[in-house]
């Protein structure tokens, strides 16, 4: 029996996270997860900026699901202030979310292939993702932080040539998703590394309250889009559900969701209403008193915002819960009984985003307080880590 710390800095993980693994030979018998290495204090920053400035801070929380964060925040403030969004703006907003889901799923497929060692496939998925990013750049002006969403709808209107390009892109993605599905179901090397690896049964998934594609791969048909926010209350789509719950099922769910997203985009572009795209807001107007919540389906799962206002220009409290925080316990659970070599694949299987997840860390030391110098703090940190 031996104990191995994996992380915080480890070649298998793209971002810092720590797993304490107990090994029996090459098998993992117990795993414990420790998070909090990339805490940036964004919630506190949100309390210091005005409600208009925080739109652009919120999209910096995550580089991949930036417009989901932005949209979730904006949707919450719209509920708080009673701004009625324009219909065309809402449709463009939904289009941005779906384009983002496409690029996120393609990125994740690439990362999974990279962890397994199929570098050619990694290149193919990221090449296809680049086409989605080109469209997003034309829509918002930047590749990653596109700032395409604002109060009452979207910031930039769609031109006719851009609509044609979006239709061509969705046809391209529809064609490519067939190729990915075929690859995921039939490639021998891929099946050997993912079939039966990291299996999360339906009952376990319900107990650990996982969200998003991880839950859908385990057979739980949950999707916040089905609650009917933004343009989803009109757009026809089906929730993709698989039964196996392993990494292979997760990959299949995401490959099929590419198809669903492409179809939603086609529907939106076809049924795009005419009119204004956003509502003008005075730069230093005050928020009404109150509190609200907002939920959207980010590419990784359910994203949750809680907003509280005390009647000034700044929000009093912003609480963010990201999908990775809900899913990370499932990794620690499913690692048990697998080979050490499968740990990166299982960890990558939930599409983790540590930068999203780390909000605040509370270490309960029963009310002790002490002022320390930097060297004392480092010594204390080393001792604390060795002890626990």
């Amino acid at each position, binding site marked *: 029996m031996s104990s191995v710390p994996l992380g915080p800095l480890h070649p298998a993980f793209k971002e810092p996270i720590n797993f304490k693994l107990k090994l029996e030979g090459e098998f993992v018998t117990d795993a414990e997860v420790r998070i909090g290495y990339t805490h940036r204090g964004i919630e506190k920053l949100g309390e210091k900026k005005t409600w208009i400035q925080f739109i652009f*801070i919120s999209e910096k929380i995550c580089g991949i699901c930036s417009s989901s964060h932005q949209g979730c925040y904006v949707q919450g403030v719209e509920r708080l202030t009673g701004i009625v969004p324009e219909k065309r703006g809402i449709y463009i907003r939904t289009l941005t979310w779906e384009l983002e889901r496409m690029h996120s799923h393609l990125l994740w497929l690439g990362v999974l292939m990279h962890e397994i060692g199929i570098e050619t496939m990694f290149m193919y998925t990221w090449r296809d993702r680049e086409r989605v990013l080109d469209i997003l750049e034309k829509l918002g002006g930047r590749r990653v932080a596109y700032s395409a969403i604002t109060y009452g709808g979207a910031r930039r209107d769609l031109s006719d040539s851009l609509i044609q390009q979006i239709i061509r892109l969705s046809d391209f993605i529809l064609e490519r998703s067939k190729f990915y599905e075929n690859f995921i179901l039939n490639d021998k090397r891929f099946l050997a590394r993912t079939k039966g690896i990291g299996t999360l049964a339906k009952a376990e998934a319900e107990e650990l309250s996982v969200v998003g594609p991880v839950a859908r791969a385990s057979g739980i048909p949950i999707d916040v889009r089905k609650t009917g926010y933004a343009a989803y209350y009109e757009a026809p789509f089906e929730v993709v559900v698989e039964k196996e719950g392993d990494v292979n099922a997760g990959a299949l769910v995401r490959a099929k969701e590419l198809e669903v997203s492409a179809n939603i985009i086609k529907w939106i572009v076809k049924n795009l209403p005419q009119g204004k795209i956003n509502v003008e807001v005075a730069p230093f107007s005050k928020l009404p008193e109150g509190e609200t919540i907002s939920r959207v389906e980010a590419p990784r799962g359910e994203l949750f915002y809680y907003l509280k206002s005390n009647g000034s220009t700044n929000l009093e409290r912003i609480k963010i819960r990201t999908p990775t925080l809900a899913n990370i316990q499932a990794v620690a659970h499913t690692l048990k009984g697998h080979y050490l070599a499968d740990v990166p694949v299982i960890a990558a299987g939930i599409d983790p985003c540590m930068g999203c997840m780390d909000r605040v860390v509370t270490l309960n030391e029963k009310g002790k307080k002490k002022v320390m110098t930097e060297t004392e703090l480092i010594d204390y940190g080393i001792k604390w880590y060795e002890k626990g």
Partner: protein
Amino acid sequence: MELLTEAIKNLFKRPFTEEKSKEKDWFIRGKLILDISKCTGCSLCEKVCPSKAITMVEDNRTKLKKSPIIDVSECIFCGLCVDYCPTKALAFTKSCALVSYEKKDFVKG
């Protein structure tokens, strides 16, 4: 086998990476540019900026009491100043080259 057929197909395709930013309708939120002749010195851009990249200073560029200078190294390219400028004095350029050895190169009027 699926990969091999895909690889052979790709042998006969043209290169995927090409410089696309030169296309006409390509919208890029690049470096900010200030048309000082249109500026009225209202300082709305300074107040609305989330990253405090714009500051109002007294100088002899115009007859105004104060006029804005932009620190591009602090800018997050959100475009709130462009949206709220009442006389459209601020605008985005297509330039994204933000490399320099000295901090003073980023500060401009």
